């Protein structure tokens, strides 16, 4: 034990359990030996989170959070601040990367049952993180105060206004004004740089502590804790550090190649990462012809728009019902651990219905994403409606098909 030694480290360890925690979470923390690339997204998400924090701090040093100054200050960062353009593009590309990785990370969870007992809390914290990330992205998108910032925020805030009885007052309360204005901008700034990131850091810590308590999964769904060697290390496991930390480095390298290729050569992502109208200052007298969300909200925006009917006799407008379905599309992820009744974790050993469900879910999510960036017409609305059903069906039917489908036998070892 390090704590008994009369070294500097021993001195510290008797007062703060540094060595103990390093061993517990890094050098002696067992993780499955064999995993696939899907298991790298968590590490990459940590990298992106750090990029966002660091570039965000630098942007904050030069940004002005007022209605008059916001747009000009972003251009000031782009032109007059040394490497300001790099900070800004890394931050905007980082937002897209964050969502891209998050979607894959969560899809991995769905595929390999990373939410099943006893990992429910890991999954729940992760879902909260998705929710917070969506809030963070939305709040941040308003800050450059371009046309799309302004009008997209108007669309989203008006959703709160659609809630019966309290809606209009609630919207004014959130905005802090009768219209979306500089007051909204500066409170969104405060939320974007302080409140939401703090919550996210707390949840990341919970997410990882909970994960280290129950142990990381693997694509086979094998419980590696069953067989241990004489030192107590699982036979199919290896210490997190150095094996997984160095294992992640090539992936981080590849990620940076793609990330910087976008930052340096296509920072606007063809109008999908930074939308064209956002290079025009917000003008409350001029609505853009077509208000489109950034790509990462597009699937959910499609779901919102797909609801073209309300329930008149209950006083529910189509807009409010759309808001409910939209909220449900995220909320349903939270309850997945209790919808899955399968006796195996991994999709590899689940039955055909689970496999079809995952394909349908992925296909509908991508199609909804595509439709969300396009203006509506009748056909697109119809497809969006079908896809909305296909988005929910895999979850809503999960208790049935996972219970009755035939599963394969999971091997003992990895």
């Amino acid at each position, binding site marked *: 034990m390090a704590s008994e030694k009369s070294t500097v480290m021993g001195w510290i360890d008797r007062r703060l359990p540094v060595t103990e925690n390093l061993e517990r979470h890094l050098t002696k923390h067992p993780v499955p030996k064999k995993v696939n690339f899907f298991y790298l997204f968590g590490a990459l998400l940590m990298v992106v989170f750090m990029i966002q924090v660091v570039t965000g701090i630098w942007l904050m040093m030069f940004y002005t959070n007022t209605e008059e100054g916001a747009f000009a200050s972003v251009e000031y960062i782009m032109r007059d601040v040394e490497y300001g353009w790099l900070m800004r593009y890394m931050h905007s590309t980082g937002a897209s990367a964050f969502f891209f990785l998050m979607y894959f990370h969560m899809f991995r969870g769905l595929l390999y049952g990373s939410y099943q007992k006893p990992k429910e809390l890991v999954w729940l914290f992760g879902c909260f993180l998705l929710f917070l990330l969506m809030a963070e992205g939305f709040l941040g998108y308003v800050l450059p105060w371009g046309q799309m910032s302004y009008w997209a925020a108007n669309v989203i805030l008006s959703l709160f206004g659609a809630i019966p009885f309290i809606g209009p007052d609630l919207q004014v309360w959130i905005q802090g004004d009768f219209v979306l204005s500089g007051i909204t901008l500066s409170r969104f700034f405060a939320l974007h740089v302080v409140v939401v990131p703090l919550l996210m850091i707390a949840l990341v810590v919970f997410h990882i502590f909970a994960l280290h308590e129950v142990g990381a999964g693997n694509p086979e769904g094998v419980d590696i804790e069953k067989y241990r060697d004489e030192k107590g290390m699982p036979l199919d496991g290896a210490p997190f550090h150095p094996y997984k930390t160095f294992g992640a480095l090539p992936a981080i*390298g590849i990620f940076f*190649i793609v990330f910087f290729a976008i930052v340096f050569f296509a920072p606007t992502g063809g109008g999908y990462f930074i939308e064209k109208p956002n290079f025009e200052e917000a003008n409350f007298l001029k609505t853009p012809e077509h208000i489109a969300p950034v790509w990462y909200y597009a699937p959910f925006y499609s779901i919102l728009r797909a609801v073209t009917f309300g329930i008149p006799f209950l006083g529910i407008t189509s807009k409010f019902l759309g808001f409910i379905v939209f909220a449900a599309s995220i909320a349903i992820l939270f309850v997945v651990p209790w919808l899955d009744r399968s006796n195996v974790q991994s999709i590899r050993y689940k039955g055909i219905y689970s496999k079809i469900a995952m394909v349908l879910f992925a296909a509908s999510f991508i199609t909804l994403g595509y439709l969300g960036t396009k203006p509506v017409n009748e056909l697109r609305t119809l497809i969006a409606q079908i896809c909305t059903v296909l988005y929910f069906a895999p979850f809503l039917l999960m208790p049935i098909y996972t219970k009755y489908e035939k599963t394969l036998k999971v091997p003992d070892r990895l």
Partner: protein
Amino acid sequence: MKKLLITLLIFSAYSYSAGENDCGSLEKCDAFSSDVHDLYSLQRGLGIYMNYCASCHSLKLLRWNRLQKDLVIPENIVTEELIRTSDTKIADHMTFGMPEISPIGAPDLTLRTRVRGDEWIYTYLRTFYEDPLQTSGSNNLVYVGTSMPNVLVGLQGNQALDKDGKLVKISEGSLTKEEFDRSMKDLVNFLAYAAEPARITREKNGVFVILFFIVFTAVMNLLYREYAKELK
């Protein structure tokens, strides 16, 4: 299930082809993608801008000295020939002495190529035609009903619409069609530069950053393989 997927695929393909028109009355804008690394093109573009655009359109986000440095123009040429307002310093923005909001409604053009895209601007500048119904006497195929007069008529010559709605030349300008198109490319290049001066450094240095990470990945992969051996 397969049938459903195929139907979905066909539906999405159909919805894609039913795309929207973002080039005014034209089916498609002419292909053009700006190049900010051609220094002479940028300088020629600046020349056209100063002669034909600067009397109405400001570039309020671009500074004179940034322009001077990036386009490698001798400082005395900028201060003596280009800055025409007496109280303007070289570190000031290129507002040409215009008020914050243009009295004739001419938009500031600093970020215009980023709002509209290179192709839109390039096509817009070349599709003016004579239209006596318009106050300015001219109309545009890309921005139908534009209030901007055809200031480039001296260079391009005048155009009119024939029965089929196609552009036909009705008078000659000082430039041939090829020369005019090239000038407009210069102008769009210059505007693209004005919209994002950092693009020059960005596109030049990006290669080195990516090369660094390729080497980084290769080295890290070797390191990883050493550790992976121990796991077998």
